[in-house]
């Protein structure tokens, strides 16, 4: 019902959502967000995006975020899949999908999970382009996106 996974290989949006639906009888809404590798970094063409993580911490941290979402919204099921390793532009990086009785809860919970994942799950992105490689800096806008959920 509530599942988090970290993996190198790609995921199938359709397969993940179908499994979620089977785990959420009575659901009236499913929201699925997919994050992709952008083609352009900081004004540069990206050839590859490498995602590093802290293996012993990552899944626990994702589970805590989903747990926090469950305390705020009546979620029937939720699933987070995050990829690590080397990815190329337009590839899928992350899936957050939620199932609820009514759509507002599914939208809000999915957005909440993404906003927290960005700033509290131990992943780091490194861009590699024609002009070299550099670590992506954390964005203030991501921090603000998270802070607006504080109650």
């Amino acid at each position, binding site marked *: 019902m509530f599942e988090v996974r970290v993996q190198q290989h790609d995921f199938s949006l359709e397969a993940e959502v179908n499994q979620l639906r089977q785990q959420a009888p009575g659901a009236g809404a499913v929201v699925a967000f997919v994050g992709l590798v952008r083609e352009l970094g900081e004004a540069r063409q990206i050839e590859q995006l490498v995602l590093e993580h802290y293996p*012993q911490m990552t899944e626990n941290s994702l589970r805590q975020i989903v747990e926090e979402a469950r305390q705020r919204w009546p979620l029937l099921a939720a699933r987070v899949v995050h990829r690590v390793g080397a990815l190329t532009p337009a590839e899928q990086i*992350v899936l957050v999908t939620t199932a609820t009785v009514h759509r507002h809860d599914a939208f809000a919970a999915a957005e909440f999970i993404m906003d927290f994942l960005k700033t509290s799950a131990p*992943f780091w992105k490194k861009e590699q382009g024609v002009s070299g490689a550099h670590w992506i800096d*954390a964005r203030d806008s*991501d921090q603000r996106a998270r802070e607006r959920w504080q109650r």
Partner: protein
Amino acid sequence: MKICYFARVREALGLDHELLQPPPQVDRVDRLMAHLIAARGPLWAEVLDPERILVAVNQQIAAFDTPIGADDEVAFFPPMTGG
């Protein structure tokens, strides 16, 4: 004590983890940072800058005054950029 380094911190220090037996007075994260900086010099002072890094103790985000002991795992890394 196991100490882990990730992302930019790992690359700057050229180290992904190490096992260390610090002296008994090194009983908090900030004291561990001061101990490492004193022993290893300016590069470590630059990288272990509390304004620019986060710390986890036993895989949980922690404050710099968190108590630590010989059996703990301490990790230093930059702010997260997942998603």
